[in-house]
């Protein structure tokens, strides 16, 4: 293994500000929406207005007559022009022949309110929208299936013609013998958790601008997507083009969060129309369209067996996910991930999780930060709190009894090999930081009045760096680093910029390794013509894989420069130190040469001067973390996550006993993502995740009318947390490097969501008081008030 970077990579030396922060703040960054090619046309979708129906016919004649309309396409017409989206590959389900597909435009059936079934292209966005409204659709409504029980009832209609029923996929994750453990356990608690439907909601919606270059025979696509190479692959298949005849540009995103995974129909259709009409075509999603998409809705029942000391002896979970209408993006993989992350950081050998993903007539899912791990954390922490309550002990005691100890790691379960960590130290640190003992004392002293304080503590395990073998985007990444004779480096990376500032961390790694200033590194991303093949951004991999690949390439260039410097000074490489943009003799720092001069030397004199080889000033490296196993072992286990971040979250909330309102007072978190490259960025990630966790726990929900129409169509109805909703946040970190990643990094993009949700739920339950109450997020004031009422009635 190449020498591990020392403290220079860590926090102390590089608390660098975002490289391009000023451009973002000054509005100089060009997002997708800023691109309006001079002669472009605008595309608007005709979307179904009922949740479930047969389409008897479509009449586009009125729409076609609107001046300025340049193109129209119905589902029937699209079917012969563009291939369907593939939701499940062939062989995924043994009972289905071939892949399970979804048409780009609905042809004879509507599966959710808002499903696109036709499109209009016109001179202006307004004209396209108006014309789209004039398309008349003849529906034969069918009773919509909105809930899982309904979708699984034997008499309910099939929602997908290729599938025998409405259970899309299911599985079991288990270790040991849970049933035996539960039947032998001295005590068993059971509970229920329902997590309401919600979605990742980036500030920027999706969009796509495409044009066909007839002279080159190439499609140029600019799309607000996290995975440009994956989009290129899909477009090639759907439009019958070679991948090399397509260029996809992914501009800086105004937030990705999994919402901008590819696999939905809009981008391919924009490309199709650009090619057909021979002019650039543009589509930008409006908020109402964006809010059609979901990314979580879970119903879990759990049973936990325990002894008198609070030790968890066995765990059984039934986890159902309402995934809405079938979609062809990675979002449908989340319920499986949620199940695979049990039993989290707890030392429980006997557990079983039965999970199902069920289709309904709600809107389709796409990915979302947390990726199912949020429900895992909530269920585990609810069970732990239940155990504490049953025994009359502080919830912290149950964590102490059950969290894995650092000497037990690496720790293998059915689906994970947890790499490293010190959970108990994080717990102690978080409790100290939160002033937990004092907070509990204050809590008990406080007069009831009209509000009650509750405190919740939660542990969250966050597997990261996923390698989904079988898919187009894998867990490895490639980077090219080029050094020029100005002494500047250019990094070409296949990871993209969702807005997290990961390119700053990548630049840091390269700058430090080569020995140049951060301001001399440019990071190029989001261009399938220029960068190596890449996985884009997902599973917090930008620094973990993208950064490490860049570091490796930079390391090779460092070698080139060391060799050149040794020839330059007539010494050995070991006598040279790299500092302040120069390569110099360790024993006499006045003998130094700049990186620029060394680069020029290599260029000009390579092989012409003794000792100076003709070396490349460009290096490409691929990196795949260790600790991955895609081929099942003798026990049938696979292992898709190389690294495991984790955190402890302490929430203090005040519950208004008369209105049920929950106001957040404090949130304390101690987080460990292994080696930290840029602490500012990591803090920003955790803060953002905490905000998302508050939204999930307290106010975000996508609901439907009984007819299956979405209710929360804008931000006055889909309630996101705002600054006044945020508590005072205190953060601290541990750094337990991963033994399985080259730089010890683990990924920090998703940590904080599940832990925050669980801690807040714990705090509210703590405030409401003892008693068995089912958990249903978001904990809106009416729900909390109903719980308080139930408590009173019980008493």
């Amino acid at each position, binding site marked *: 293994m190449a020498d591990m970077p020392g403290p220079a990579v860590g926090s102390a030396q590089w608390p660098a500000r975002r490289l391009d922060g000023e451009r973002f703040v000054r509005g100089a960054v060009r997002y997708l929406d800023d691109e309006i090619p001079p002669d472009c046309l605008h595309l608007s979708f005709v979307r179904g207005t009922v949740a479930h129906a047969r389409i008897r016919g479509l009449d586009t004649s009125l729409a076609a007559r609107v001046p300025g309309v340049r193109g129209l396409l119905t589902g029937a017409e699209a079917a012969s022009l563009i291939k369907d989206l593939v939701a499940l590959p062939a062989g995924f389900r043994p009972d289905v022949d071939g892949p399970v597909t979804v048409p780009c435009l609905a042809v004879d059936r509507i599966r959710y309110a808002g499903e696109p079934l036709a499109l209009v292209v016109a001179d202006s966005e*307004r004209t396209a*929208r108006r014309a789209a409204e004039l398309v008349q659709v003849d529906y034969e409504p069918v009773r919509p299936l909105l809930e899982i029980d309904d979708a699984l009832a034997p008499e309910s209609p099939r929602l997908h013609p290729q599938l025998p029923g409405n259970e899309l996929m299911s599985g079991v994750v288990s270790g040991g013998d849970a049933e035996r453990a539960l039947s032998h356990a001295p005590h068993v608690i059971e509970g229920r958790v329902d997590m309401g439907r919600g979605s990742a909601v980036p500030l920027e919606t999706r969009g796509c601008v495409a044009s066909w270059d007839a002279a080159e025979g190439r499609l140029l696509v600019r799309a607000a997507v996290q995975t440009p190479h994956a989009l290129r692959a899909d477009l090639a298949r759907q439009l019958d083009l070679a991948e090399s005849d397509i260029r996809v540009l992914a501009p800086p995103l105004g937030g990705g969060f999994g919402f901008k995974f590819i696999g939905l129909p809009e981008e391919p259709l924009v490309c199709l129309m650009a090619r057909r009409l021979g002019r650039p075509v543009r589509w930008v999603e*409006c908020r109402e369209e964006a809010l059609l998409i979901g990314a979580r809705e879970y119903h879990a029942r759990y049973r936990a067996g325990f002894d008198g000391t609070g030790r968890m002896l066995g765990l059984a979970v039934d986890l159902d996910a309402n995934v809405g209408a079938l979609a062809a993006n990675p979002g449908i993989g989340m319920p499986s991930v949620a199940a695979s992350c049990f039993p989290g950081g707890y030392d429980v050998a006997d557990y079983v999780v039965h999970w199902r993903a069920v289709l309904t007539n709600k809107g389709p899912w796409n990915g979302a930060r947390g990726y199912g791990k949020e429900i895992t954390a909530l269920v585990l922490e609810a069970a732990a709190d239940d155990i504490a309550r049953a025994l009359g002990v502080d919830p912290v005691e149950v964590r102490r009894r059950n969290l894995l100890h650092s000497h037990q790691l690496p720790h293998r379960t059915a689906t994970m090999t947890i790499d490293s960590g010190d959970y108990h130290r994080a717990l102690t640190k978080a409790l100290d930081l939160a002033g937990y003992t004092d907070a509990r004392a204050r809590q008990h002293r406080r007069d009831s009045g009209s509000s009650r304080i509750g405190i919740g503590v939660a542990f969250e395990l966050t597997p990261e760096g996923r390698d989904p073998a079988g898919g187009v985007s894998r867990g490895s990444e490639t980077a090219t680093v080029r050094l020029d004779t100005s002494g500047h480096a250019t990094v070409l990376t296949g990871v993209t910029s969702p807005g997290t500032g990961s390119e700053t961390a990548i630049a840091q790694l390269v700058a430090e390794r080569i020995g140049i200033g951060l301001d001399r590194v440019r990071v190029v991303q989001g261009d399938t013509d220029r960068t190596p093949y890449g996985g884009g951004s997902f599973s917090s991999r930008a620094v973990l894989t993208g950064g490490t690949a860049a570091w490796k390439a930079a390391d090779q260039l460092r070698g080139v420069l060391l060799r050149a410097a040794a020839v330059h000074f007539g010494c050995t490489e070991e006598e040279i130190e790299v500092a302040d943009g120069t390569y110099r003799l360790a024993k006499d720092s006045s003998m130094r040469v700049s990186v620029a001069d060394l680069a020029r030397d290599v260029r000009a004199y390579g092989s012409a001067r003794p000792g100076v080889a003709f070396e490349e000033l460009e290096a490409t490296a691929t990196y795949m973390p260790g600790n991955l196993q895609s081929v099942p072992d003798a026990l049938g286990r696979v292992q898709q996550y190389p690294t495991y971040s984790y955190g402890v979250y302490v929430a203090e909330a005040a519950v208004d006993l*008369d*209105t049920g*309102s929950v106001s957040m007072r404090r949130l304390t978190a101690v987080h460990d993502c292994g080696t930290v490259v840029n602490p500012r960025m990591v803090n920003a990630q955790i803060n953002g995740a905490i905000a998302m966790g508050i939204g999930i726990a*307290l*106010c975000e929900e996508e*609901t439907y009318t009984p007819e299956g129409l979405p*209710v*929360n169509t804008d*931000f*006055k*109805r889909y*309630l*996101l*947390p*705002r*600054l*006044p*909703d945020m508590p005072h946040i205190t953060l601290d970190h541990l750094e337990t490097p991963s033994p399985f990643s080259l730089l010890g990094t683990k990924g920090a993009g998703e940590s904080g969501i599940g832990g925050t949700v669980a801690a807040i739920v714990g705090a509210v339950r703590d405030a409401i008081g003892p008693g068995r109450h089912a958990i249903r997020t978001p904990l*809106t*004031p*009416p729900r909390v*008030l109903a719980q308080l009422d139930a408590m009173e009635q019980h008493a």
Partner: protein
Amino acid sequence: MLIPQLTRGTIAPDVLVDLHRLPGAARLRTSAGATTLGAMVSYTTLIRDPTAPPLLRHIAQGITGGPQIRNQGTIAGSACYANPASEMPTALVASGAIMRIAGPAGTRSCGAADFFDGAFTTRLAPNEALVALDLPASTNSPDYGYCKIKRSESSWPIATATALTSGNGMLNLVLGAAVTRPVTITVPPEISTLTVATIDQAVEHQGAEWWADELADIGYRRRVAIVALTRALASLQERIVKRDRP
């Protein structure tokens, strides 16, 4: 509301009139203790003017949406939109505001309580415009109570209650957001508890109805309406006590 509706294209008016150039439209004037708000007085103007009625200033500071909304949103605009969830209609009724309305036949006045007819409905005719709001001197009283119950910061109000002393020594409580039009309940100053029955009666008596929307149903609103009124009342009583203390 007009601007978002125009942006989304949910309304497409043939004629759009900008009232900014109406003389005095953006000004707040006090004269002999009475205050007149022009049609274009924004929340920010209210907030920045220390002579503005305290109750209205208090409410203006809590309008959701930050400076962008507070700079553009107007009190008169909120009144004309008459969204039951909006705070200003209730505040205007509580303040005893007189609405000055201009039309082809000239200018007329209408008391705020009569102006608000129901959810999204006012007594403004299609060819009329609200040009000013006259607030009597009593609205300058520093004694007020206000309580707003929301679901979260993004949420519009679920129940609001204002409490002011009325001229004759009684206290006027006005309930908003939970009802289709503001409902006034007059109580003696020494009152300690309100009953749901009292509120139900007032709602019915004043031709209002309980209001429900996507954020809360009627059951929840009836529960928290009494909480809002009680808290506004307590807040007013506290202010009175503080003032009377030597």
